[in-house]
């Protein structure tokens, strides 16, 4: 297992937590880039690698937050990665739509559990503006990422338009 790409992903998560989360928020709706990266790793890598990466991604993601959430986030991300791997193996996900559906489901679950862990007030309101809206926002980004990754959009095709 080459460790460097995973380190880069972890730094990307840290960059998101420290700088990009607030900068990319739209009307208070934030991207869940850590969950997206973990799910992307789960789609394209082995389950053990994805599970360990999820564990460390949870650590990095929760490091700046309340100390009680560190272990829970690590466990949750790890389970998310493992579950995504299992779904991918069982359902043999090939189509773009199936991958997008899995990502939106995974982000929804992660957002919902994070909201429960944070014990925030006005739970139902946050389900709308944090869990659902955040999942949709993240899925839009995931869809674009998958379009590029699956080579549906390429530089040559964009050049051909113009």
């Amino acid at each position, binding site marked *: 297992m080459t460790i460097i790409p995973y380190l880069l992903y972890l730094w990307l998560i840290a960059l998101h937590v420290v700088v990009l989360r607030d900068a990319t928020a739209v009307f208070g709706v934030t991207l869940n880039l850590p969950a997206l990266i973990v799910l992307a790793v789960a789609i394209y890598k082995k389950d*053990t690698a994805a*599970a360990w990466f999820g*564990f460390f991604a949870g*650590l990095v993601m929760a490091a*700046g937050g309340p100390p009680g959430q560190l272990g*829970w986030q690590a466990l949750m991300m790890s389970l998310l990665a493992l579950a995504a791997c299992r779904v991918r193996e069982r359902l043999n996900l090939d189509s773009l739509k199936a991958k997008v559906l899995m990502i939106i489901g995974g982000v929804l679950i992660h957002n919902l559990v994070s909201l429960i862990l944070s014990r925030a007030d006005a739970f139902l309101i946050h389900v709308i503006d944090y869990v659902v809206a955040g999942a949709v926002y993240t899925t839009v980004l995931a869809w674009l990422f998958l379009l590029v990754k699956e080579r549906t959009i390429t530089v040559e095709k964009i050049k051909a338009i113009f």
Partner: protein
Amino acid sequence: MKWISNLFSGYARSVHFVAICALALVLILGGPKVTENAGGVAIAAFHYPFAKLKNSIEGLVGIAEQNAQCERTLIEMTQSLNRLEEMEREIERLRSVLNFDPPPGYDLLQARVLSVSGAVGPVSAVISRGSDDGVEVGMSVINQQGLVGRIVLVFLNVATVELLTDPAHRVAARVAESREMGIVKYRSREGMTLDNFPIQGAIEIGNQVVSSGLGGIYPPGLVIGTVRSVERPPEDPFCRVHLDAAANFNTLEELFILKERRL
């Protein structure tokens, strides 16, 4: 030992999963010290560079905002300073005006210069007084330095002053010291001159030239200028006398109309 290896390779996925769960449980149940250490490592390794970068960017943004604010303040202060300097100059002018006495038998009517016109230099000025203020054609206009001109056009609230610098303007004048007379003209090339002054006349550089009052337009004794140069050409019956005008026609702001006191 082989059986251990076989056991773990057969259940590799489970071993990994158990290890992850065990670590997570340690973090959850380990208490604040464990989470602090683990979180500290994650922060130091991953968050710290970006936090430092973010702080630097925020610092730069803050400095840029401060800089913009300083520039705005500097512009405002410069404008205030310019206003204050202008007020100071106005105060100086008004102070000199306060010490200014009108010629005997005349009242002073203060007026502001609204505009000055002339192709090369100023030859006429529009002032802020008109017939509503009792201004009439022919009235003399002076400032604290000396004679400026006369009223040639009057409207309700404004009037036009023909300045001494108009080439068509003539003033009957005399040298204050010798009382000998001449006519003051203004030529665009030579400037102000005293014409028709006899060659034998007593005149020296630095003598003051004042209105004689004989022309019937200006009251006597208004300062017109001082003698700058005197030439006495042998073939000519008159001196060539050049004057420095008393009034500075390029800086006219406040003027005074001489209104004859009627008994």
